[in-house]
């Protein structure tokens, strides 16, 4: 177990800058999720942690030791790959024991350690099988088993659940989290799925275009997104955002609709007004929204509405019987409205 310090790390492939100076401090035993859209540099950062990519600038320290020039095998890390990277010609046992075999461990030690990891992951019955003969979830577990056997200081996960179906993904998500709670090993986990990030992380690092947009606890990111990118990325369905200006104590959105302002809002200026779908509520005195599409999910009803010229999504606990074209009065919970500067996109 160890801390991980990423200090002003840069990466360039030729003249293409991938990472523009990224700094994250990870505490011992923390579960950190790097999240962002494709091409944001999160996987590159993880591969730099693993030592599979060179570091162009800055420093990475694991357990206080700078590892910039330390080869992957000496960094005391274990990685779970997106495609699992199981050795197809080895059985599950051989896959898990491979690192020990290379290190020349005696047979009894290999047997003992593999059995221990297999027990944690429920793989005891599968040890003699080849990866080909396993289901997706089982392969995923073997890949984790291979990492556990190494008994590393840091676990690295590179989008490990993206090849699984939706149901299995939810199940493996909680298995990974449970495993982390049990082993308490520092973990860095890369995903593009914000729900995975929200449910698993102690610390979420939201990345975009090779920069960190915001780093913080999941609910902190949800409650106080630092900018419009994080606001739009965290939360599902995504936050409604409208450009407009503050005038006469209200926000004038597209089409001139007057939205109520949160307490402490500036008196004037060009802003972006953000409200999460779940923070809109039905209110007889609210704004008249014309219903466009209704999507009942059972636990809640999502409604796409037109308010002025803006298309707004609302998520309501109530069952809504309105039909498309009808009017639904809604109002935002003003304490949960987010205002962003229109020029910079930063939170006001």
């Amino acid at each position, binding site marked *: 177990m160890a801390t991980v310090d990423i200090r002003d790390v840069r990466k360039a492939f030729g003249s293409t800058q991938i990472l523009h100076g990224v700094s994250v401090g990870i505490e011992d035993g923390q579960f950190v999720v790097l999240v962002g859209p494709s091409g944001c540099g999160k996987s590159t950062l993880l591969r730099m942690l*693993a030592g599979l990519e060179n570091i162009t600038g800055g420093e990475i320290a694991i357990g206080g030791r700078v590892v910039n020039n330390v080869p*992957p095998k000496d960094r005391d890390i274990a990685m779970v790959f997106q*495609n699992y990277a199981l*050795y197809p010609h080895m059985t599950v046992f051989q896959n898990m024991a491979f690192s020990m075999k*290379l*290190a020349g461990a005696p047979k009894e030690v290999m047997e003992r350690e593999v059995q221990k990891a297999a027990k944690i992951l429920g793989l005891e019955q599968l040890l003699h099988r*080849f990866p080909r*003969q396993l289901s997706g979830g089982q392969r995923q577990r073997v890949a984790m088993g*291979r990492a556990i056997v190494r008994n590393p200081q840091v676990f690295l996960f590179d989008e490990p659940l993206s090849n699984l179906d939706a149901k299995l993904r939810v199940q493996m998500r909680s298995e990974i989290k449970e495993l982390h709670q049990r082993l308490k090993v520092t973990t860095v986990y890369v995903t593009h799925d914000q729900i995975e990030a929200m449910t698993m992380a102690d610390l979420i690092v939201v990345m975009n275009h090779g920069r960190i947009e915001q780093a913080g606890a999941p609910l902190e990111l949800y409650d106080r997104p630092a900018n419009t990118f994080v606001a739009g990325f965290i939360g599902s369905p995504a936050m409604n955002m409208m450009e407009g200006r503050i005038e006469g104590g209200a926000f004038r959105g597209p089409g001139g609709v007057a939205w109520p302002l949160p307490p402490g809002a500036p008196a004037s200026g060009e802003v972006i007004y953000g409200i999460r779908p779940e923070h809109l509520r039905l209110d007889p005195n609210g704004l008249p929204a014309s219903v466009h599409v209704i999507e009942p999910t059972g636990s809640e009803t999502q409604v796409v509405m037109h308010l002025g010229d803006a298309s707004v999504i609302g998520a309501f606990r109530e069952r809504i019987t309105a039909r498309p074209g009808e009017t639904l009065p809604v109002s935002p919970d003003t304490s949960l409205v987010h205002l962003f500067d229109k020029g910079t996109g930063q939170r006001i």
Partner: protein
Amino acid sequence: MSATAAEGWIRKNQEQNWLTRLLDWKPFLVVMCLLPAVALLMVFLTYPLGLGIWLAFTDTTIGRSGVWVGLENFEFMMEDPIFWNAVFYSVFYTAVATVGKFGLGLWLALLLNNHLPFKSFLRAIILLPWIVPTVLTAIAFWWIYNPQFSIISWVFIELGLRDSNIDFINTAWPARWSLIGANVWRGIPFVAISLLAGLQTISPSLYEAALLDGSTGWQRFRYITFPMLLPILAIVMTFSIIFTFTDFQLVYAITRGGPVNSTHLLATLAFQRGIAGGQLGEGAAIAVSMIPFLVFATLFSYFALARRKWQQGESND
């Protein structure tokens, strides 16, 4: 306008004529599609093979159709030291050349699998020895090995390392090794390119995983590359062994089986006896004697190497 035309369009119920129905009839279609291939194989493969086997049991010579003589040709062959010499050299030639081709070919493939400057150019160059007609290769090597004008001899003499020409093909053992050298040179590209294709099917993430597992370069080759390459290696080796064992052109063009029959392969000896010597029956018998070797080589690499449990499907437990 086009919209109204599209709305007014109705699919016509097509009346099928007898030809359409015949072509839709699967048995007819199967026979029609197979016929050209079957005909070609019959004319150019089955008939010559059958004729060869038939001739092996007759005393046919050029200009005289023979009569059935049973195993007489084979009995004669068994007591013929030149035949046994050809058997020995065929096996020796195949074994040594295969080892050479695979050693160097695998080494080249591994080199070319790295990121090199001018990679595609190098890969194209590697193929050159293979696309040159064999007879041209043979003539080139004939000159290289020439007792008087050999460029290798010339270089050695110019460098002061020797004071006489090297004897490449005028005595038995040097000639045998020289021919193997020419065959290896010609065979490397096929092996290298095939194995390179095999190497490129190995996922790079396996190497990354092995890197994190603490492997050295040799261990990655030993535990990842080699076992994963084995199925392709087996197939390429089967082909290579068959081509080498049945080689004819190189040997015939460079030494014609000489000196004193020391470099005869079974194929060149069969040709020598059957066509040049006119003893068609005897030549055919020698050619037929290659069949068991080839069947054995094929079965061996196919069963011993090609099928691996880890390549098979899920339901195998």
